[in-house]
């Protein structure tokens, strides 16, 4: 069915299986093709869908709808306690109500501002630090070692210390987000600077640009896609830390505080899950914004399909 399309020189070299069972020749060809070290070849129809953006969106939407349907059926079917697994429809309904609930929006805003504030501070610190360390020979190797040593310390483990030092919940949250976001941004900036093409740097040097000019006009834009990747990772880590800090340190508001409140009085699982969905939506939105920014700033990466 789909085999004539790619029966170029391939089938001639196929094993005997392909010849004796012509009905399955298409599939066999596909398999031996990938065995021969070629790129993965999905079937023609799947290719048709995944090639187009709308096709991919369609497949994605189908996956989400299917999962929601499954959750709904499991919850309504009585297989699980409704307390443990609230049906998808009621969670979505709660989530929609929350979108117009000023109290919840206030909590959401507190989380978002602490998260973005900490993230922005981390970027403002880590990118210049990375540029400085990365431009000085040998220092970048030394600093990479330090970063690799400090990075595995889970920021959540520092919550008690942060509470002790910063006391005020907003500052605790911001500083923890900043600490957590610092490492991925710094690390990716350093790696990005290592990747800068020496010929590109020499080109600008030969036109009489000094070290600062080269850093600003070549190293930074060249490392840019790496930096954006670092910020993306930092954003997702930062969100985890922000909500964790609120859950532990409390304060007068925030997504974590809201979720804690839904525990009281027997608990409202539908609200908990809906709140968690909003936290997830924040992460998705941040990622989408950063991917979009990366594509706009560094179109070659996007054209090469390597999206930053």
């Amino acid at each position, binding site marked *: 069915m789909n085999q004539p399309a790619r029966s170029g020189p391939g089938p001639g070299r196929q094993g005997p299986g392909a010849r004796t069972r012509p009905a399955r020749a298409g599939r066999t060809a596909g398999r031996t093709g990938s065995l021969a070290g070629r790129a993965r070849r999905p079937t023609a129809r799947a290719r048709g869908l995944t090639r187009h953006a709308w096709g991919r969106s369609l497949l994605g939407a189908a996956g989400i709808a299917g999962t929601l349907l499954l959750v709904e059926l499991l919850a309504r079917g009585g297989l699980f306690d409704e307390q443990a697994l609230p049906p998808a429809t009621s969670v979505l309904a709660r989530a929609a109500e929350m979108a117009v609930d000023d109290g919840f929006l206030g909590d959401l805003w507190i989380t978002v501002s602490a998260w973005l504030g900490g993230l922005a501070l981390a970027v403002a610190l880590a990118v210049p630090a990375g540029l400085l360390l990365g431009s000085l020979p040998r220092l970048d190797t030394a600093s990479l070692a330090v970063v690799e040593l400090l990075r595995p310390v889970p920021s959540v483990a520092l919550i008690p210390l942060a509470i002790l030092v910063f006391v005020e919940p907003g500052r605790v949250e911001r500083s923890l987000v900043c600490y957590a976001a610092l490492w991925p941004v710094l690390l990716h900036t350093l790696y990005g600077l290592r990747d800068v*093409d020496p*010929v590109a740097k020499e080109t600008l040097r*030969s036109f*009489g640009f000094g070290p600062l000019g080269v850093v600003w006009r070549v190293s930074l834009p*060249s490392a840019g896609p790496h930096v954006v990747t670092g910020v993306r990772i930092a954003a997702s880590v930062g969100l985890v830390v922000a909500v964790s800090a609120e859950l532990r340190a409390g304060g007068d508001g925030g997504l974590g505080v809201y979720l804690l409140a839904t525990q009281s009085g027997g608990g409202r699982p539908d609200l908990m899950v809906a709140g968690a969905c909003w936290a997830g939506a924040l992460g998705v939105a941040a990622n989408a914004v950063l991917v979009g920014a990366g594509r706009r700033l560094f179109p070659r990466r996007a054209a090469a399909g390597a999206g930053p």
Partner: protein
Amino acid sequence: MLDITGLSHRYEDGHQAVEGVELHVDRGELVSIVGPSGCGKSTLLRCVAGLQRPSAGRISVAGRAVDGVPDDLAVVFQDYTRSLFPWLTVRDNVALPLRRRGLARAERRARALDALAQVGLDATAGKHPWQLSGGMQQRVAIARALAYRPALLLMDEPFGSVDAQTREDLEDLLLAVRGGAGHQGGAGHRGGAGHRRGAGHQGGAGTTILLVTHDIDESVYVADRVVVLTGAPGRVHSDLPVDLPAPRDQIGTRALPAFVRLRTEVGRAVRRP
């Protein structure tokens, strides 16, 4: 314009690239440098560009000793894919070095478009380098050097990574901009920018060009002089003036007895150990 005396360079791994190179190039000359592979042609060029400090010897450009990158210099590298900046458009790639000339944004852009027109690429100004073919990318790199109007232009196997046809076109382009840039892209037809041109060299016929190549025919075809280096460590083996008539063309010039004699001579010199 360029004086090299007793230039030697030994790399950290002990490889002696060049040894005791002596070379003098007059203002406005186009000198090609050929030699067997690994004879230190590129090392020589990098030392002149100030990108590499030689272990011994003296280089001076326009009477000033080279210590760091000399003023008024442009380099065209062989590897255009690495030398062009993928995050900038073609026009911005060409315009970027002009910041060193202290030109305003509009002037930089105008001059970049001028240079792109010279290499026949003004239509692609808004594209990114990676959207162009290899030959076009190298033309962008050449346009960038032309727009800068350097007093000294260094070219390190500039046509080494393009196909034969494009190579011939680029050689002719080099001859054309040398012969005609003085009145083509040069002074004055863009009124207002005229008086600022003093900020840079006037380009075209006045530019001194050092062209490293491994192609013997090319070294003769484009140059006023061919300098042959010996095998590693590189020394000047011979220095041959090219006395071919002025309007050169790929078919006619290459068929001239003088051309054939010269390329034979250069070829022998390169092969001799």
